[in-house]
């Protein structure tokens, strides 16, 4: 595989019907390309957690998956509202999700920590009123 593959998905706020479509498609493409299963697994987890975060917390955003010969870069970017305290958001168990999200099985405060754990490189930048960008790199 010499060529770089780029997948782009728009993710709408509160669209629980389609939540998971972007990650599901990403996983299928990675399988087709023949990426090692351990990397596929970690890429699927970070993409799905990022997608659910966009659906649950953001005002909408996008997920971009870039597949290079030696690494996969997953970028999740939204249009707000931004995270007031990123350090707090990175703590296991901390969540601002409302009860109706918790009833769906999410909002346990494991999302961002798990995304970091499953990535080789992880960065998060957020500005209230502007948006959040999370970039995760996984080496193949």
């Amino acid at each position, binding site marked *: 595989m010499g060529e770089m593959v780029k997948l782009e998905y728009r993710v709408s706020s509160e669209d629980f019907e389609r939540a998971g479509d972007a990650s*599901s498609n990403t996983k299928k493409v990675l399988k087709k390309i023949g990426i090692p299963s351990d990397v596929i*697994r970690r890429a699927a*987890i970070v993409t*799905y957690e990022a997608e659910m975060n966009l659906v649950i917390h953001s005002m909408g955003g996008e997920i971009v998956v870039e597949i290079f010969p030696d690494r996969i870069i997953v970028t999740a970017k939204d249009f707000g509202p931004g995270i007031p305290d990123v350090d707090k958001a990175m703590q296991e168990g901390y969540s601002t999700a409302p009860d109706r999200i918790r009833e*769906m099985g*999410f909002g*346990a405060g*494991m999302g961002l920590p*798990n995304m970091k754990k499953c990535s080789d490189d992880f960065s998060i930048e957020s500005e209230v009123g502007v948006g959040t960008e999370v970039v995760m790199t996984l080496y193949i």
Partner: protein
Amino acid sequence: MNIRQIVEILKAEVLTGEDDMEKEVKYAFGADLMSDVLAFVNEKTVLLTGLTNPQVIRTAEMIDISAIVYVRGKKPDDASIMLAKENNITLLRTSFTLYTTSGLLYSAGLQGIDVLGVIK
């Protein structure tokens, strides 16, 4: 342990995957928190849950969970069943509670997942 044994032990109804009874699982994990499932579960695991929305199937798909048991008689919605069929995920349904389901499978030799190290 294979799916057929799980069906027998739990007196379970088979919702999808009737043709896949010999599929083997090595571990079981019980939770209604999908974030925890994503954080802790490895492959060859059967998920025991009372949560019935399609996100459960999506979660299973992401981490290659091949079978789900709905406890307390919970029934997944049609969207979940369709999604499970698409992804070859076996869905079972038992009347037992999560506690009893876990106990029955554990007594029959099905191991839990090691999450030691969570408490530091």
